[in-house]
């Protein structure tokens, strides 16, 4: 690519700026609204900035709402789900890709078939199961069903199949066992794909709504999306600056994570094979 100025780059830049401005506008509007004095949030004609910039709404939301507690619940459940999903899926994928045992093909077929089962259609039986197990309103009810992620196993099986067998052989010759080979050779080699899988599992879990919404009715176990949906419709009434402050606070963590890890995320997507190359 040439480094000098070109008209085509300028045109692309202008188009991208316009599209980015449109795409960012709702988020910027939320931020702008959250910084206005409450009584100016519905003023007409629309103003991007109020008479002053105030953080009162943030102070009120953080002081009174359960938003901090829900953020902690979301973080804890998402971290546990991500850890268990990646660990168990990687182990299973390794078992399928690199070892042989009786019934292997049937089990793998069973797991691949599971990719087609949308979790959303299982809400009624899963809920009944949770009632039977006495797990409603516990973190485990939120966590366990999300760990059963056959797509992750599939992605990792594909990846592990391409790990050169020579790397394992050398370790076996040196007397390493299966577990050691798995943890010290295969997993480190798979870091990019594991990172991508972890990030997307984390995003999905953090943002999941329907299932946590059904199994957590206790404000103490609610995740951020559930707590936000419940409370914003109830207690805040029409206090838009506070509503938007909650929205900004709830949206911020993952955006920060993304800005920090964006290169790895894009590269990771390529590594999962999801990009189809």
């Amino acid at each position: 690519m040439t480094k000098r100025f070109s008209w085509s780059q300028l045109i692309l830049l202008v188009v991208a700026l316009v599209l980015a401005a449109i795409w960012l506008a709702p988020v910027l509007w939320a931020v702008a609204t959250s910084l206005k004095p409450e009584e100016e949030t519905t003023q007409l004609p629309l103003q991007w900035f109020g008479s002053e910039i105030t953080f009162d709404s943030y102070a009120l939301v953080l002081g009174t709402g359960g938003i901090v507690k829900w953020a902690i619940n979301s973080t804890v459940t998402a971290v546990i789900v991500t850890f268990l999903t990646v660990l168990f899926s990687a182990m299973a994928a390794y078992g399928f890709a690199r070892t042989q045992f009786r019934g292997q093909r049937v089990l793998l077929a069973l797991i691949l078939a599971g990719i087609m089962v949308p979790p959303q259609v299982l809400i009624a039986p899963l809920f009944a199961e949770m009632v039977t197990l006495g797990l409603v309103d516990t973190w485990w009810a939120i966590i366990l069903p999300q760990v059963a992620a056959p797509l992750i196993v599939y992605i990792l099986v594909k990846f592990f199949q391409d790990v050169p067998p020579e790397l394992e052989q050398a370790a076996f010759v040196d007397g390493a066992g299966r577990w050691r080979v798995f943890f010290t050779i295969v997993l480190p080699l798979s870091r990019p794909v594991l990172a991508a899988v972890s990030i997307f599992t984390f995003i999905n879990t953090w943002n999941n709504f329907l299932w946590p919404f059904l199994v957590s009715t206790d404000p103490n176990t609610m995740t951020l999306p559930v707590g936000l949906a419940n409370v914003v419709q109830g207690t805040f009434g029409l206090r838009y600056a506070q509503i938007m402050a909650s929205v900004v606070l709830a949206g911020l963590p993952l955006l920060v994570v993304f800005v920090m890890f964006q290169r790895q995320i894009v590269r990771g997507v390529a590594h999962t094979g999801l990009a189809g190359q």
Partner: protein
Amino acid sequence: MTTTVAAPPTAAPVATPKVRRGWTQHGMVFVAPFLLIYVAFLVWPTLLGFQMSLSSVNIAGRNNNFVGFDNYLEAFGDPRMWRSLWNTVVFTVLSTIPLVFLGLVFALLVHNLRFMQWLWRLSFFGPFLLPSAVVSILWLQMIYPPDYGLINGTLGTDVLWLGDPSVAMWSMVLTTVWWTVGFNFLLYLAALQSIPHHLYEAAAIDGASAWDKLRSITLPLLGRTTMLIVVLQLVASLKVFDQIYLMTGGGPQDSTRPIIEYAYDVGFTGYRTGYASAVSYILFALIVIVSLAQLRLFRKREEVAS
């Protein structure tokens, strides 16, 4: 001991440890933890759900009588089921087209720009990172309100974005495209970055224009990615629930209620869990049909390609 170490590494074929005695059960140990959770929380509820769809069970687990296929027969004669199924199909078609097309346009744009990559990635992918509750509240409270909402306020229009039955579905599509196009954008961007550079260099030597390169190198090489994105998108759109439930609750006049919300409504609010399971399984069947059809299409294309 020394003799084995002395063996040159090239003395293949080395007996693979797979078949060595004592290894054979190890595989099962690796698979077991996942399998346990998978069977308990995916296979079992799938079977249980089917059993429930053949019963008159309610949310409390009571009144659990076997009714055969009565629930399915009732669902097929239920206009609200058909309406919600139709809404789901309409939403899927209306959302998939712009989500795939815009994802591609954004990715091509960003891939060809040399400046400020982080800004474009954040702008187009950022919304995907927001929880559905955040997106719904934002659009419901600040973007769509007829008087002081951002769209009407900026454009000077007075559209009832969520109150008009003929507009509400389009509003749901608009919000969804804004929210989720980032995922497809990212998949396309990753695919674009893995196209080998030398193809373009060779084309440039042959005097190909930017348009020629796009048409004869980029787009054909994105074919597989596009098929994958279409599959993922169709299935994702068929499962729509969050934003519609949170923004319109299915209204106005049932014009946006998707089938998952109908299943939720009859199962969790209306207490008819058996009937809700039957409705869920109708959607499940639709998703399986779409997935299998796509899979076949995939296979055919690949056979042609190879």
